[in-house]
């Protein structure tokens, strides 16, 4: 419940503040968002598995974001930034799908 409230608070804050992203961070924010979504679904799955741990959730959330941004940064430095960010998005998308599949099996037994 608090998670849902937190999400709503974040959305409202973003809408109200309308911040400008620094130019240096612009390529990394979308990837970081996708990585964070992956961590969120992973956490939800862990809740349903009954093995949720806040420390693991925190670490996986932050490391997902940092590693995704790092990969994109490295790709930019190597000149394959767009391809590598596509790859990261694909991988994270697959993980999100598998997590959602596990959640679905837990909730609907199907």
């Amino acid at each position, binding site marked *: 419940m608090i998670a*849902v409230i937190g999400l709503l608070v974040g959305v409202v804050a973003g809408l109200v503040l309308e911040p400008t992203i620094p130019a240096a961070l612009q390529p990394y924010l979308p990837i970081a968002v996708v990585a964070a979504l992956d961590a969120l679904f992973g956490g939800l799955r862990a809740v349903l598995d009954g093995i*949720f741990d806040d420390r693991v959730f925190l670490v996986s959330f932050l490391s997902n974001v940092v590693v995704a941004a790092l990969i994109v940064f490295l790709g930019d430095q190597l000149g394959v930034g767009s391809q590598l960010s596509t790859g990261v998005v694909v991988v994270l998308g697959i993980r999100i799908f598998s997590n959602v599949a596990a959640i679905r099996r837990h909730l609907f037994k199907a």
Partner: protein
Amino acid sequence: MSTDPQPAAPSPDDPSPAGSPAPTPVVGWRAAGRALRPRATRAQALTGVLCALLGFAIVVQVQQTDESGLTVLRESELVSLLDQTTRQADELQQQVNELERTHSELQSGSTSREAALEAATRSAAAQGILSGRLPAQGPGVVVTVSDPTGSVSALTLLNLLEELRNAGAEAVQLNDLRLTASSYVVGGDDGVVVDGSVVAPPYRWVAIGDPSTIATALAIPGGALAKVQIDGGTADVQQQDQVEVTATRAVAEPEHATPRSATDD
């Protein structure tokens, strides 16, 4: 769907039971219900903070994507876009240059054609007057030679014509004949013949030129008018500001002579 044995984010081999609220795992809907119940635990607070962060980031990114077309593009994409735009601009600039060149060419061409046409028209008018093809008007003199006895000779009349020419007459008419460079005056059996036709007195000359110069030239002692009087005729010279030479003559096409370019002299 792939059956991933491991949860994506929290791995099951790291159970870390320190923060878990229940010693025995609760699964399925009951777990979801437990998670939805608000409790002031560290796990809930942390999750709320992280979710707030995520929501904030999502909204910011969506707004950024909405408002900015170019700023979300990568450096390489921007470079290729810039290249493309620059190339297009270059091509368009080339087209502009070509069209401008064509435009100026056409303009100068039409200008020079107009100038040539104007010059040709002016030249044609001047040649027409000098060759007797066109009627003319202007200041001049009217010389009337009366010859009641028919004693004025063709030579005297030719003398008068020569004197008019010498004084700068540009167009000369005798009675209804236009006199030009090729005109001739001969004495025939039945009178004076000019250019093949008999001319009867009184002889009325109309000459366009400077009136005072012509009058002075005709009146010099021993000149044309004096010869007329010697022959037994009378001459009257009127200077006028406006006389009209109305007679014309057809100009024959040159049969042997062709124009020669003046530039390769």
